[in-house]
């Protein structure tokens, strides 16, 4: 079995939890639909967002330089990182140069992609994640399982046990309000004691050299305004040309992500605060390679709303950890093979290619088509599992011989009726968690021929 399938099987072992996960994410998808349908101009917004991102990618070097120039004029320190190691080293250097003690970090999938926390921990430096979901998974030494809802794989009992161990909350108190307020108290102390705040970036505006960070909890702002130093980390594809384009993206982002009309805080940073220091780290880490892949470059349009996660029948039933990467879900499955094709060769196959992801994507990325194209690239590179390869070869052989195909069909129908144990057994993965329909006596072809005669 592939890595994804193996990990998914572990997730599926708890059937009740799998069902809860599936239904909860579907509910988030429905909230997204309701929010999207409330705007008659929704499709126009998606079209604009897609065109703005296409245009930006086609002028990216110019916009990056414009952004840098304006940011520097605003008094911001701009750093460039070719890969994850350089990104981490730049941050480490700032920490060392300033004798930083406390570090708080709000959600940034880029820092997850670069494994910043693990890197700094190896240098003896602790980073406190301040998004509630991220703090929960950090206590549990787990990665986030969803880019917007990091702890969606957990139940309140799990959170309660974790907080009891780490924060000394009452054992057995599962009340989300009580647990949230305990975390609020704990993290307030961390915010007030921090010297350095790390945040992600949702949008970086070339025209003004500023950037936008969106949160509901207010954790990015609590960190960035309380600490002396603020470092914002961004993949270089976060650029948009002008501030007016934010009108399009802020209308799409939260509605696509959670069905909210907008996030609670949409914060625009341009200059360091009085007595503060502001740094921006612009990261490539494989993005320029993806930009050069014609079939896959428009995956760089992604605004990380996770609508494709919530709608995906495979993600909902297999959980984020089965994708074994920082960004899971359908979009992760087209981004991660670029980062490491061999390690992530299983991911483009973790899909039914139903196309729902492409239909909900607010920037119109053709996600399911790219999944299918990655499969072809991966097969050409010889990275498909032997069992899958053998199965495909056998199928191709059968399908190329009509008489053989017909007799095998008849045999299969007969055995499903007469000797069900031959097919419905542990060796046949098609029967896992699935009841097959009753096999018909005759094939469609023979039925159709009879109809023609009568």
């Amino acid at each position: 079995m592939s890595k994804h399938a193996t990990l998914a099987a572990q997730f599926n072992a708890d059937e009740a939890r799998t069902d809860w996960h599936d239904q909860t994410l579907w509910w988030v998808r429905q909230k997204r639909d309701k929010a999207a349908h409330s705007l008659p101009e929704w499709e126009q917004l998606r079209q604009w967002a897609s065109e703005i991102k296409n245009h930006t990618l086609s002028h990216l070097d110019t916009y990056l330089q414009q952004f840098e120039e304006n940011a520097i004029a605003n008094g911001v320190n701009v750093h460039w990182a070719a890969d994850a190691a350089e990104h981490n080293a730049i941050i480490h250097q700032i920490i060392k140069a300033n004798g930083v003690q406390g570090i708080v970090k709000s959600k940034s999938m880029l820092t997850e992609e670069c494994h910043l926390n693990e890197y700094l921990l190896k240098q003896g430096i602790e980073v406190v994640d301040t998004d509630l979901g991220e703090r929960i998974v950090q206590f549990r030494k787990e990665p986030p399982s969803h880019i917007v809802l990091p702890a969606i794989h957990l139940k309140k009992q799990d959170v309660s046990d974790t907080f009891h161990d780490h924060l000394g909350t009452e054992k057995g108190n599962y009340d989300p309000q009580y647990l949230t307020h305990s975390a609020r108290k704990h993290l307030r102390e961390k915010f007030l004691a921090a010297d350095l705040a790390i945040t992600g970036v949702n949008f970086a505006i070339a025209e003004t050299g500023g950037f936008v960070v969106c949160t509901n909890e207010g954790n990015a702002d609590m960190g960035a305004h309380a600490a002396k130093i603020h470092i914002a980390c961004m993949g270089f594809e976060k650029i948009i040309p002008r501030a007016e384009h934010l009108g399009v993206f802020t209308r799409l982002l939260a509605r696509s992500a959670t069905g909210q009309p907008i996030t609670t805080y949409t914060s625009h940073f341009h200059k360091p605060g009085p007595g503060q220091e502001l740094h921006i780290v612009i990261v490539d880490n494989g993005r320029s390679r993806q930009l050069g892949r014609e079939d896959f470059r428009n995956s760089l349009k992604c605004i990380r709303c996770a609508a494709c996660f919530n709608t995906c029948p495979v993600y909902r039933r297999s959980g984020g950890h089965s994708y074994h990467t920082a960004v899971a879900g359908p979009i992760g499955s087209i981004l991660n093979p670029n980062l490491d094709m061999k390690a992530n060769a299983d991911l483009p196959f973790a899909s039914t290619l139903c196309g729902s992801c492409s239909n909900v994507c607010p920037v119109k990325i053709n996600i399911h088509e790219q999944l299918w194209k990655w499969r072809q690239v991966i097969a050409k590179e010889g990275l498909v599992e032997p069992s899958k390869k053998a199965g495909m070869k056998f199928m191709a052989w059968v399908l190329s011989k009509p008489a053989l195909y017909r007799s095998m069909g008849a045999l299969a129908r007969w055995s499903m009726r007469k000797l069900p144990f031959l097919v419905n057994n542990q060796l046949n993965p098609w029967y896992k968690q699935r009841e097959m329909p009753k096999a018909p006596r005759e094939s469609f072809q023979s039925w159709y021929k009879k109809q023609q005669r009568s």
Partner: protein
Amino acid sequence: MNNRNSTTDKKYTNSRSRILEAVAKSKPAATPLPDLRFALSDNETQPELVSSFEQFVQGVGGRVFQLEGAGAIRDYLQKEAPTDGLVINRVEEIGPIDEVPESLSTLDTLQRAYIRGKIGVAENGAIWVDETAMGKRIIPFICQELVLVINAEDIVPTMHQAYNAIQVNGAGFGVFIAGPSKTADIEQSLVIGAHGPVALTVLILK
């Protein structure tokens, strides 16, 4: 830039120009920007915009008071005065402007802050607040209750009009605020009061 780890120096000489070169080489053929001529919904009257704005503020967990005239403001302040704790006022119509304390531990006890909002957005209840109105950037986030004061005529239909009406870089920092801070990270149960204020009140002045 000078912030570079000496051990990584050799491998990463001049990442900036190497990244920009790689991007220039890999970028697709030029495509145009769309024309964002948005039909400014002037079919909505100002009272309709105020009403939509009010519904959205309530929908995202805030309270709304529409106040007409200085008397209404006085009545509101009397009725809704906090019983104890530190209060900071930054809005002229509310009263004398307070100086903002420097110490974070003092600000951590901030019960209520009154701050001027510049633009309200009818489609989502968001309010634009910039640094000049805050006194200190952390004020609207660290207080327990945030009171934003906005003029009825400054409510616009959508984010498009909002971005037209503001200058995003007019101050070093600015933020759209929609409701009190919130999270649903535990089993998707909505909890009001994550890291920022546990309550948001919006005063619409007519």
